[in-house]
């Protein structure tokens, strides 16, 4: 069953916590991965790959650069999840 917006944000928060050590409560829709959450371009790739596995979605390299905020990623996953 497809994940809801809340489930996706919660999942992303766990992933970002695991990869970058950011507290889960800091991961909010309006937060920028690079500017607010200290997720650099390489960690972002790890976040994306973990998100792909967790939400059964494909996020090609070309699309990764458009995912600036947690909201962008959530929306992308909502739209593309299997």
């Amino acid at each position, binding site marked *: 069953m497809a994940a809801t917006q809340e489930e996706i944000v919660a999942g992303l928060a766990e992933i970002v916590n695991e990869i970058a050590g950011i507290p889960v409560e800091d991961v909010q829709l309006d937060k920028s991965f690079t500017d607010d959450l200290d997720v*650099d*371009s*390489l960690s*972002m*790739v*790890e976040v*994306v*790959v973990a998100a792909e596995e967790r939400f059964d979605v494909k996020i090609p*390299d070309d699309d*990764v*650069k458009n995912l600036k905020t947690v909201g962008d990623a959530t929306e992308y996953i909502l739209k593309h999840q299997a």
Partner: protein
Amino acid sequence: MAKIKPSKGAPYARILGVGGYRPTRVVPNEVILERIDSSDEWIRSRSGIETRHWAGPEETVTAMSLEASGKALADAGISAEQIGGVIVSTVSHFRQTPAVATEIADKLGTDKAAAFDISAGCAGFGYGLTLAKGMISEGSAQYVLVIGVERLSDLTDLEDRATAFLFGDGAGAVVVGPSEEPAIGPTVWGSEGDKSDTIKQTVPWTDYRDGTVDKFPAITQEGQAVFRWAVFEMAKVAKEALDAAGLSPDDLDVFIPHQANVRIIDSMVKTLKLPEHVTVARDIRTTGNTSAASIPLAMERLLATGEAKSGDTALVIGFGAGLVYAATVVTLP
């Protein structure tokens, strides 16, 4: 029909000795920062690189190869006349013909050893090792010298903040010879030419000659795409090489991945779930990315510092422009 007599080789092959050469000039991040808008902290956190070596005018591809090869021969206890093959992997030797391997074979004092260059980017060491193993098992050479050598500083755009700090120069060499026991496992290798744009020379030489571009060609890459491929796809390849050798991560003593970026190395270790006892090469910190030279250079350093010892079981994996890759398990010399 005439019956052709088959050649007869050794039962198995092994690495008998390793040698490296690092150019005398050590270049810290501060020097790189003179040309790009970045910081020491940024470079270290994105790549792990603190210093790299850049070759001077006298430290040619040939000169560095001769130094590394001399050490490898001494380490192996083999004389140059015993060498039947010289394989050089490089992407930064600027005279395409003749192969630089022939000059190296001659200057080393081999007895007309078969000599040729290969182009397999950062997987060049594994490609060369696999060819050497084949030559020894098949009987066309008893001892083969495999050299990875680069002057990547010649192919670095010092104004590109994404790559200016990345590359270094140096040479690493191994002597491969006959063995009664298997000491080089099956190679898992391949190419993914559909991803050729991911790491490449900016433009062909002829574009520069014809004035189509002003800038001398340099190596460029798509950082995120390379990172994803290197960490997640190459971890699968590394696992396949372990499986092919009939080993599990617990059987390993050492992991020597191509020294592309410490973040790639750390993530690969995590993805592969390597046990704590496995020594991981992180020569990148003071050597930079030396492409084909990185694995033998890292191997030499681990043995020299005592972090690894002769007889240890090491997983080696190279990956890079092509895209190409090669992984195998070896017994350290």
